[in-house]
């Protein structure tokens, strides 16, 4: 059985005053192996964010289920959901979502504090991680005192420090300049090489080309997927670009 199993996900939103139903996801199934680096691409409104929210257990599907490491999401009680999320998933958001009230170090510690870890253990985990991500010297600064790239690296550190089974990234390069974006993506690649499973939702071909596999979503359905195989980043870029062209022209008629 695969590490992450997504089975027949369906999500329907009903507008507040009844009647109008919006299908965000129609029927999506795929699986991710341990240590894989998967990018999910699609246009605005294609259902990417809904998919990610359901993967993050922040939202519940109308139908279908997700299994992470053989544990079914639908069988987790509401009360345990938070702890489950905390212990198994790491998040990287487009707008970083760092807390202004904490220094970068304390932001990174946040999930560990919530887990009830001791300070010495937290510190032990942070030192190598901060070195790897190159943020050691900024740790005592506050989010409003550092650049976007540094903030996103701190956010990545916060996601990694719990040693989660799965990292979920939502447009992680969306708010970064190209230099910071490139450095963040190489960081993701490095982390992935060390065995970390990553699922990243993105618009950017630049970001998606680094992944081992790219899924394309259109109108709530899985439209296509491409594997990197032995291709280089550049070849990957072209493959994705071609697929997107097909994705956008098809159905226009």
């Amino acid at each position: 059985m695969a590490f992450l199993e997504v089975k027949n996900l369906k999500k329907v939103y009903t507008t507040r005053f009844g009647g109008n139903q919006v299908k965000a996801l129609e029927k999506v199934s795929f699986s991710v192996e341990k240590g894989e680096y998967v990018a999910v691409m699609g246009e605005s409104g294609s259902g990417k964010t809904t998919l990610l929210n359901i993967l993050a257990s922040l939202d519940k599907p109308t139908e279908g289920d997700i299994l992470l490491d053989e544990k079914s999401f639908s069988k987790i009680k509401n009360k345990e959901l938070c702890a489950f999320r905390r212990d198994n998933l790491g998040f990287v958001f487009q707008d970083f979502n760092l807390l202004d009230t904490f220094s970068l170090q304390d932001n990174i510690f946040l999930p560990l504090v919530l887990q009830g870890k001791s300070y010495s253990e937290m510190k032990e985990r942070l030192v190598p991680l901060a070195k790897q991500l190159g943020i050691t010297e900024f740790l005592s600064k506050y989010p409003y005192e550092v650049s976007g790239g540094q903030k996103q690296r701190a956010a990545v550190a916060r996601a990694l420090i719990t040693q989660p089974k799965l990292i979920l990234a939502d447009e992680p390069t969306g708010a970064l300049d190209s230099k910071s974006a490139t450095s963040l993506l190489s960081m993701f690649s490095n982390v992935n090489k060390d065995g970390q499973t990553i699922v990243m939702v993105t618009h950017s071909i630049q970001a998606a080309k680094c992944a081992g596999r790219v899924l394309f979503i259109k109108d709530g359905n899985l439209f296509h997927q491409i594997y990197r195989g032995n291709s280089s980043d550049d070849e990957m870029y072209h493959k994705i670009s071609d697929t997107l062209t097909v994705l956008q022209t098809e159905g226009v008629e």
Partner: protein
Amino acid sequence: MSKTIILPKMAATGIRKNGIVYLPYILTTAFSISVFFIFSCIIKNDFLENVPHAAYMWMLLKIGNGLLGIILVPFLFYTNSFLIKRRKNEIGLYSILGLEKKHIAFMMFMETLFIYIIAMVIGLITAVVFAKLVFLILLNASGLPVDVEFTMPLSSFITTLIFFGGISLLNLGTNLYQVTKANPSDLLREPKKGERQPKSLFISTVLGILFLGGGYWIAFVSKVDGMIFLNFFLAVFMVVVGTYFLFTSGSIALLRTLRKNKNYYYKKANYITISGMIYRMKKSAASLVNICIFSTMVIITLLCTVSLTLGEKAAIRFICPLDAEYVFDSSKMQDTSAFETDMQRLASQNNVQIKDKINYNYFLIDTCNNQNIFSILKSSSDMEKERLVRLISLSDFNRIEGQNKKLEQDEILVYSNTEDFKYSSVTLNEKVYKVKEEISSFHFDTKEVNNYSRGRLYFIINDYSNVDKMAKQFNDGSDYLDYEGSGTPYYSVRFNMEGEISNKEAFLNALDKKWTETPEFISNKNVIDWGYDVKSMDGGLLFLGVFFGLIFTICLLLIMYYKQISEGLEDKHNFDVMQQVGLSDEDVKATIHRQIMLVFGLPLAVAIIHTMMGLRMTTKLLYALNLYNNKLIALSCLGIIAVFAVFYVLSYFLTANTYYRIVKRKS
């Protein structure tokens, strides 16, 4: 649609959409308007000047009305600052969408006008409906006749309209200044930066200690005299400033220390609370100080009110140990028994029985007192040491106090109705007397060591001819006599009465009518008239206490409410992120409770400390009203603090709930 229509419409929508903050503001303003208007009406009803015994109350209400104005201006100004902060974003958006500054100004003017009109209508209607009732309650509490006409003069309406119009304009001006000076992007952008923390806590700590210490010192040492109100306000002012400085520096220092303790800081509940509090401590300190000060004011106001109500009877009795007293100039009386004959006759005519009657002769002499030496007033510099002394003969004393004491020629007895006299000898006009005994109590003049203003010293001399001689020496030897009764031989009659209260009043009226116009009459007082005076004053104080307590409480609630809402909105994003990272619903609740408990527990604790420090001054103020029952005051104080704490905790839960609803993730 033309601008003159759409702008007022936008103003109305703005108020409606922000109902969560505007509604409490409007209601508070309306309540303030009601109270202000009712006070103003009562003061302007000139009957209070005509009704006997109402003078004290009228004066108190006048002071109250002034105080009300002084409190309302900064308070409404302060709440307004919460409101405008919430609107900045929206106004920035309007500005980007093309509203010019003059349009925005017009819209904000309309908003202010709407709020003013709504609050005024609600406030005045409530006031008109309840004014008469409030007035009757006041009269009833003060023991005044309730069958008087009550009018609402036009001038009260005008004063109220102008006063609150002025406050509205002040707030509008501040808002316009803030909004127009900033550019749209500033208005739109959420202020992300944390406050810059004060570099050196040292200065503000020192200032805080100086001000607070000074305030406490004034509260502790000030005496009951003409300066007491000035001292009172000075003490309040210094305590407020001191509290502000100490709250800021003290809490930041405390939080920093806590943050340094890694094992404590990196715990789930502490972590979020401490970092959040450090982040906005300076701003928090201001509202915490407000909460603390208002709490203190509520407690002290209630303390005075409750103590006065409970201690009223004792306070009346303190001045009139016996029901009635008449004093005459005995040199102008041919027959001292004539008055008593009349008294007995009028009493039986009115079905009143005279009990515990005493009569005695005394002199009241004006002396220059230096420790135990009492000399004749010889120069104007002697006047600074002026002291009145009462001289009574031993035989009168033995008769009225039922004693059988004996004195030699050079011996006297001493009685002081305040602190003990203590000296073993007395020099009276260069002649030394041995104090044979210091009497510990007079049944017609209650001893009370805390009595500052009505201290009386009695010397009891072996026989009346000596008393007479001594009075003449002090009187004739001086050109600087301040007290015109000095040297007059007084004859005093005191008694208790039994019977119906109306009969007692009729009897006293008849007796007064017959005797107060005579040449020998000096003074009279009785427990019934005095009781009316005291009730009028206490009732006025009670009335003020209740209303001010209510107003302070509402101010307190509103500040708490706004603080929770504004912080909840600021924290919403943080809690969202934390919940995504894995903070559970229970954790959110626990964190909020811990945070709010700290934030609200601190002001309550400090308010209790302030109350304790202010207790001495409050007690002295109550002493001035002849309330000497320390035990009663202490018990009232404890009771009020307990009740207030319960109320405080309830409002804490209420506001914590509001906060929780704001930060809770919607899913």
